[in-house]
């Protein structure tokens, strides 16, 4: 059940999105009212004066990147509040503790670097024109800037969002996904307002129990997150490992793994069910390991689902807390609560599939598993899964990452494709293109 506040903030977000759709040179009376409502919402907050003057400027057709930056902040803050509310509600329901660790502060940029300033101007142009009226020329005009942003690893967050969005914009779909595009516009704008400096790290040694990979990708970037339990000197904790690599559209499926040679050891750990012994790996405060395959070796056997269930089952013996994201990063899409479901009833209907355990019912993310190693049939007979509880479009759903049909033999998303580590394809796109790159790029210079 979603609280009334959620629906209220969602209504305001969708009203803001109507402004982005129509374009700020085209505001009608309803749109003007939305700007006034927005200013009212921030009354009594530190943003009060700024929001009021932004609302006035935008209503009067005075357009500056800073105003659109603040509009993005205002929209994002509504989603931060939604994230907090949903996280609290879910953890209470699952009986899991919350950690209130001190959060790393993100410094706002004193002055905007020229490249990020170009991004802000382009995003402003899109908003002024309106998503419904974008011309190919406007979209193409950004191509050279995007190429420069991608070339600078400091701007990876901005580049990841904008490269993915550009592929969608270029196609000009009949059905414009307004909410999604407004999200992408907002996050891209936010990403130009601050730069997260390399966060403080500490060195850890201990045992890592990998539980599953979650993959994310668009045409020119691919990224995975490994979810795991880390037993170091202190109490066990949830740990994640992320790696991201640029790609080209032609690199797909199993070839994606070849972009991540250091993932081989993690894949081996998962597929053989052997834990990893870590020696002096770097760990960020929020539980993210900076993966270094050279500082890890295969260790003893472990039972993936047993480890996962101990910490993430519905009645977990040793429930683990999850650390909070920094406030400016909170958005319902980032909610990812690890969960183990056992002895469930799988029900399929026209509206989708769900898993029931006692009174609790969980919608299944069918898109994520169809055609995968752990499709509905496998889940039906496995009777136990590890996955993530995620939230989108007003509802929670389970995205399964791993299961097992035979005791101790894990099945997980990516298992089939990862077999390229054992036997690299003869003509693999990654190899061919990297070879071209080394020849052509050296030749040129």
């Amino acid at each position, binding site marked *: 059940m979603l609280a009334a506040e959620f629906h209220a903030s969602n209504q305001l977000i*969708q009203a803001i999105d109507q402004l982005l759709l129509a374009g700020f040179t085209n505001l009608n009376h309803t749109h003007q009212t939305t700007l006034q409502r927005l200013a009212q919402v921030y009354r009594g907050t530190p943003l009060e004066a700024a929001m009021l003057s932004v609302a006035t400027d935008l209503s009067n057709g005075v357009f500056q990147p800073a105003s659109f930056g603040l509009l993005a902040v205002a929209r994002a803050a509504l989603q931060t509040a939604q994230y907090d509310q949903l996280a609290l509600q879910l953890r209470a329901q699952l009986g899991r503790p919350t950690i209130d660790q001190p959060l790393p502060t993100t410094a706002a940029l004193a002055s905007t670097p020229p490249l990020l300033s170009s991004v802000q101007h382009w995003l402003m142009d899109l908003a002024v024109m309106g998503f419904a009226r974008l011309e190919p020329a406007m979209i193409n005009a950004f191509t050279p800037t995007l190429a420069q942003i991608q*070339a600078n690893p400091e701007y990876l967050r901005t580049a990841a969002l904008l490269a993915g969005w550009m592929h969608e914009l270029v196609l000009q779909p009949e059905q414009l996904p307004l909410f*999604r595009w407004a999200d*992408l516009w907002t996050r891209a704008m936010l*990403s130009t307002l601050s730069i997260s400096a390399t966060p403080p790290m500490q060195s850890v040694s201990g045992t890592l129990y990998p539980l599953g990979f979650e*993959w994310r990708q668009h045409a020119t970037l691919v990224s995975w997150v490994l979810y795991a339990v880390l037993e170091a000197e202190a109490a066990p904790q949830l740990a994640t490992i992320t790696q991201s690599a640029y790609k080209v559209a032609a690199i797909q*499926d199993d070839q994606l793994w070849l972009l991540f040679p250091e993932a081989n050891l993690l894949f081996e750990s998962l597929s053989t069910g052997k834990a990893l012994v870590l020696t002096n790996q770097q760990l960020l405060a929020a539980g993210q390991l900076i993966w270094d395959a050279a500082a890890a070796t295969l260790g003893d056997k472990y039972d993936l689902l047993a480890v996962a269930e101990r910490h993430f089952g519905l009645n977990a013996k040793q429930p683990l807390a999850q650390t909070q994201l920094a406030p400016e990063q909170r958005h319902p899409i980032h909610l990812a609560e690890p969960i183990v479901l056992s002895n469930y009833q799988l029900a399929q209907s026209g509206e989708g599939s769900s898993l029931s355990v006692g009174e609790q019912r969980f919608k299944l993310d069918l898109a994520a598993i169809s055609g995968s190693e752990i499709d509905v049939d496998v889940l039906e007979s496995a009777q136990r899964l590890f996955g993530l509880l995620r939230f989108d479009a007003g509802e929670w759903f389970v995205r399964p990452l791993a299961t097992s049909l035979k005791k101790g033999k894990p099945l997980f998303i990516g298992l089939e494709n990862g077999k390229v580590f054992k036997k690299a394809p003869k003509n693999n796109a990654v190899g*061919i293109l990297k070879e071209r790159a080394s020849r052509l790029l050296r030749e040129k210079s």
Partner: protein
Amino acid sequence: MIPSSLNPPQVFQKSAKRDVKEVPFVELADGRLQGVISSGSDIQRVYVAYFEARSLNFYCSTNNNRPCGGLRGSPCNHLISLLGEGIKQFGIPGILKYLQSAHDPTTITTIGDLLKIAGHITHQAHGAIFSRFLGSLQLLELPLSALPLPEMDWFAGGA
């Protein structure tokens, strides 16, 4: 109804495997279907070719801007390969839409149909295409990132 942050419009269908040996680069950009095609005979040479929006006019030249010998009034084999791989990556409807073709998309379903509506030779090479190819290769040479990248949650799926 609360709308979704996910479910991007279909950007490119999961295609038959692209042949990157023959056509290492193909994209819809700058108002063109454009790309780079390997020479059949010389590993050091590549061809740069494109079809441009609306007119579907085309051209093919070496990366040193020498006109392709195979171009005689109609698209050469390089342009045909480019189109074939472009179809694999974007689909015919995606290409027609991007190139703002005035033709009824329901009547164009094969590569042959597309070739029939091609325009004329432009005799104009675009250096930017080869630069963009080099740019995409440069991306492949950038180091991996091992830091969290929550922004990619908007692009869930795959592999």
